[in-house]
């Protein structure tokens, strides 16, 4: 402590030569320390020089306690998963890449991709209708969302599949006349696949319409005004100015929906459509290995969701251009920076500066 006091007193003499010391006592190190509390109203003392001091970060003991507790919990779960024989990991491994399961997986991906894409396209149109000035377009869009959001997906699915019961034939012609361009049996037109896509798409459209509408509404009105004042045409205003900004609000919820849809496709098992979930059901009904096979399906759903999450991260990052002052580092960049900072044995200034430059 006494050495610190010396430094303070010395620096006081160095950096402030002209103002006469408040008292002669300031020249003596011990007296200076004593005076600091005694005479606050004396001439303002110059800042002490701490440049040679070592920095000691604050300690967070409770953070460590929490970390250890959670780590113990994670180990316990992993241990039980690995050692409990009833999980039957051998069976899981055997079926995980079986041809029938992979085929089911591809069907799930196909359903998700088609109904996701169609659902969002239709949702976009519905959102524009909902924002339109025409009361008819607005109310049709509203009614669509109202109906499809208020009926269970299961019911919609069964209804589409049984459309043939309600309408035996579907035809295209001039209404209220006998002219028909083309006519088919409903049952041949609405296959399991068609019913599944129809049900999932329409349901998805109702939800995504609201998401897209919310995104468009989140863009400041001034943006449209500025674009209009610059003479930018309406279509370009939507695609170049409004949508890219709306995407920031749309994306997180949209990916929520897509991930929901991946698992939501499992509902088409009611149509006996052989996607992933229906396939494992068929298998476990035969082999009676219910839990291991459900685990097979689960692991695949986890895998799909993980891949989608990576896409989500990078797409969101792309659309945050300009919305944040500097783009956050990607995990890859973070890792590189971490190694650049910590890999060196001697933690020196050069390394720190280099780490800062990596973006």
């Amino acid at each position, binding site marked *: 402590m006494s050495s610190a006091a010396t430094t303070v007193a010395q620096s006081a003499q160095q950096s402030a030569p002209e103002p006469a010391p408040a008292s002669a006592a300031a020249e003596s190190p011990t007296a200076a320390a004593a005076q600091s509390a005694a005479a606050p109203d004396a001439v303002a003392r110059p800042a002490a020089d701490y440049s040679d001091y070592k920095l000691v970060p604050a300690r967070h003991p409770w953070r460590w306690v929490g970390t250890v507790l959670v780590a113990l919990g994670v180990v316990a779960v992993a241990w039980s998963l690995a050692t409990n024989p009833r999980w039957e990991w051998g069976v899981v491994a055997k079926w995980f890449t079986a041809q029938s399961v992979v085929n089911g997986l591809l069907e799930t991906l196909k359903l998700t991709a088609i109904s996701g894409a169609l659902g969002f396209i239709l949702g976009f149109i519905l959102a524009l209708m909902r924002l339109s000035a025409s009361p008819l377009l607005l109310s049709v869009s509203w009614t669509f969302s109202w109906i499809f959001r208020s009926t269970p997906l299961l019911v919609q699915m069964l209804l589409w599949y049984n459309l043939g019961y309600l309408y035996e034939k579907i035809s295209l012609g001039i209404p209220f006349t006998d002219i028909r361009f083309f006519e088919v049996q409903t049952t041949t037109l609405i296959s399991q696949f068609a019913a599944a896509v129809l049900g999932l798409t329409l349901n998805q459209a109702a939800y995504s319409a609201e998401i897209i509408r919310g995104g468009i509404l989140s863009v400041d009105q001034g943006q449209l005004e*500025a674009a209009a*004042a610059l003479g930018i*045409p309406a279509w370009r205003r939507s695609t170049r100015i409004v949508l890219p900004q709306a995407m920031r609000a749309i994306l997180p919820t949209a990916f929520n929906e897509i991930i929901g849809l991946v698992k939501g496709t499992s509902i088409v098992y009611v149509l006996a459509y052989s996607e992933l979930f229906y396939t494992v059901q068929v298998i476990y009904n035969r082999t009676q290995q219910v839990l291991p096979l459900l685990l097979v399906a689960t692991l695949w759903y986890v895998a799909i969701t993980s891949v989608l999450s990576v896409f989500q991260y990078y797409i969101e990052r792309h659309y945050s251009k300009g919305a944040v*002052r500097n783009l956050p580092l990607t995990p890859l960049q973070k890792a590189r920076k971490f190694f650049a900072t910590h890999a060196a044995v001697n933690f020196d200034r050069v390394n720190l500066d280099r780490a800062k430059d990596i973006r």
Partner: protein
Amino acid sequence: MSTAATRGHVEITNVRKSFGGTEVLKGVSLTVPPGGVAVIVGPSGSGKSTLLRTINHLEKADGGYITIDGQLVGYQVRGNKLHELREKDILKQRTDIGMVFQNFNLFPHLTALENVTEAPVVALHRNKAEARKRALELLDRVGLKDRADAYPRQLSGGQQQRVAIARALALDPKILLFDEPTSALDPELVNEVLDVIRELATSGTTLIIVTHEMGFARDVADTVVFMDDGQIVEQGSPQEIFANPREPRTRSFFSKVIEPAFNI
């Protein structure tokens, strides 16, 4: 100000506008000659901004009309009726009228340069390289050439407003409208924007400026227009309006907004 200016003659005739039940403009008439600089001042809610926005048809007037170099804004004459133009034609008219907003309204997802090149490319169909070259010149003119690739959020308020001015200039407008261009800025940033506008005032472009900066208004204006309650109370040269206002309403307004030291 500049004698060479031949385009940008603005004629506002008896314009009226209501929002809901409130009449915001009660028959306003104003003439700004080519190259003139008109500064509109007045208390909040007096209709200044609304009047400005009717000039490029962002706000549709309920009555009266506006012409620019003799051409009606937003309408065309057919028989003895004024038909509103289709959006396409209105957009075309707007390319002659630049506008600078209080909150800048730069496109945040585009860089400064992209903000400036967007309109010339899509509205005037200029080629990209040419638009880019011109945009860099304009950014240079407002002192921001080295920030061309910055996004608006990486710029200070004053810099953003200067980019917005460059964006408006990129269409080579006859007329520039400024809607309280410095009201959203920190006091220390106000001058960098006013300096740019001052420079424009001598360039021959017609300027119509709504502002609360009285010192600036006195400097730059040919005509100061005092508005209150949806009407033009008084207009004249800065000397007349600031030093010898005729109307009591004008006098009482200036006595509140102008610091004593500034009194002429």
